[in-house]
């Protein structure tokens, strides 16, 4: 096959791949604005009725509110833990560092259903009632590896001699943290908060297992899928959730790149 032909072939493959990946996502807004309760082509007409319906469903508002609470808690806690872990990982040497960091990062690759079931068993054994707190706890577990990864790269990009220079110029360790370290890793911290929040907002399995009577947004969406009449509004909700997550991720990525450049690292990764 000629070089040009091969290049065409690869391009076609890439296009098919992207289509397979994103076509279902494009269906969301399509059917969210469709004037029919049945999810099928051809489209029958344009309407925003589904969105109006969302506005008038108190159960949905409660679910959004629950998700926000869980998301904020998970983001704050996992980022705080992430700062400590990332600092230890990048600034100190101690015995057992590699296995410890490995265990912290493990939830990245563990199947969520396993984590969810394991957590449920432990919580029930401990006699803890299921609530939004238990969901937040589960989310902290899966968000922390992301926070550690983002913050580690922020701390690594921070030239250690900057902190030494501050000490050398008479500043205390605490003063150095606030005048040099924090301003320089701040974009990384913001990125970590945004990503953790987004992960928690979209997370379903752990929330499904660990939630009590208060459903988070993904759990609520799942519960609505049983009713055919509700499908357009679920589509609309999914579309909004997608838009919101996308915005958060773009913001997080912007901050993450700024964190790397701000600390003197010009690399664009």
């Amino acid at each position, binding site marked *: 096959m000629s070089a040009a032909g091969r290049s065409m072939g690869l391009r076609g493959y890439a296009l098919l791949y992207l289509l397979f990946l994103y076509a279902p996502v494009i269906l969301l807004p399509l059917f969210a604005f469709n004037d029919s309760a049945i999810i099928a082509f051809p489209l029958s007409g344009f309407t925003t009725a589904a969105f109006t319906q969302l506005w008038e469903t108190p159960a949905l508002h409660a679910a959004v509110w629950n998700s926000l609470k869980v998301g904020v808690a998970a983001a704050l806690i996992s980022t705080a833990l992430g700062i400590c872990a990332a600092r230890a990982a990048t600034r100190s040497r101690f015995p057992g560092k590699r296995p410890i960091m490995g265990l912290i990062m493990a939830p990245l690759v563990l199947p969520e259903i396993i984590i969810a079931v394991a957590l449920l068993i432990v919580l029930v054994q401990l006699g803890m009632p299921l609530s939004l707190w238990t969901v937040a706890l589960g989310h902290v577990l899966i968000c922390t590896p992301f926070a550690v990864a983002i913050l580690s790269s922020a701390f690594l990009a921070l*030239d250690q*001699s*900057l902190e*030494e*220079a*501050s*000490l*050398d*110029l*008479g*500043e*205390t360790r605490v*003063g150095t943290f606030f*005048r*040099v370290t924090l*301003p*320089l890793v701040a974009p990384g911290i913001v990125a970590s908060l945004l990503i953790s929040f987004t992960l928690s907002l979209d997370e379903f399995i752990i929330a499904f297992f660990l939630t009590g009577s208060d459903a988070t947004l993904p759990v609520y969406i799942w519960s609505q899928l049983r009713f055919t009449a509700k499908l357009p509004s679920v589509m609309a909700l999914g579309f909004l959730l997608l838009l919101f997550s996308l915005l958060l991720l773009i913001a997080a990525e912007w901050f993450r790149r700024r964190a790397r450049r*701000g*600390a*003197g690292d010009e690399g664009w990764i």
Partner: protein
Amino acid sequence: MNAPLIALDRVEKRFGAFTALHGVSAEIREGEFFSLLGPSGCGKTTLLRCIAGFEQPTGGEIRIDGGSMEGVPANRRPTNMVFQSYAIFPHLDVAQNVGYGLRRLGLKREEAARRVEEALAMVDLAGYGARPSGKLSGGQRQRVALARALVMRPRVLLLDEPLSALDKKLREQMQAELRRLQRAVGITFILVTHDQEEALIMSDRIAVMFDGRIAQVADSETLYRRPVSRRVAAFIGVMNFLEARVSAASGSGIEAEIEGLGRVALRAEQAPGGAAGALSAGVRPELLSLLWPGESAERTAEGVVEDVVYYGYMTDFAVRLDGMARPLTVSMRNAAGRRAPAKGERVRVGWSTESVVLLA
């Protein structure tokens, strides 16, 4: 003779099983430009970091102004450092960088601003205060780092390879400027460098370090002319080594037989490391000369030119003297009206016994 400002008393530093400093002792005088010179990994930066307080020695003691630095953190030492990476705070502008350390001194606002301006003027950056630090060139970053340290009016300024990131022209310019600055402010400078030429040009005294030990402390000329060991001699500049055998040594003089040069009578100071174990003789290439017919020298030897390397302002000749296995390097400054001998030509090499140094 000035009193020692810094006393290094058998300073030892171990990192686990690795010993970076094997009980280093030295005294650095007030107002001196002192260099720590050595190849990478010799412990010079570790020693500097011990003085600054970033590393704690595992043995021995460092005294500054007579006071022990044991347990004194970096932020309470009368030292300031210019980092190899300059460590300019990227989120602050030039004036905020220079004024960073003044904040804890409790100065009045105007007083601090005046000192920042003064420091910037000292490094030729007057009027640069409002520039963001990201917009500075390498040379400017270096000046900001210098101003930021000098504004603190330290007892000792520590410089960790400050010129290694600059290109050759700028480096030479900064060497002269650093020297001028040091004389102007009268602060003791300790410079860490692996560049022997830089150390020779700038320093009042140099400590040559190998493998965590100081091999020799001396002024530039002594270090170059009278190195105490073959290793120091090879590290500083270029040196021809010849086999030598000491036949007689007394307090007043030494007699030795040198390969290719013959029997010589030397003064005792020409064996700075002691005559007893001396096994080789060293002669600098520029202290040997190729003689033209009619020219004379204190001593002469004959040989054949084996190679010619032209440097523009000078030429190196590899000359194998009669009876020698390896050639010597003879450096000659290129002068008008002088024809350089070609490869294969027989030449006379002139030298003087004063140029010879005996080494272990």
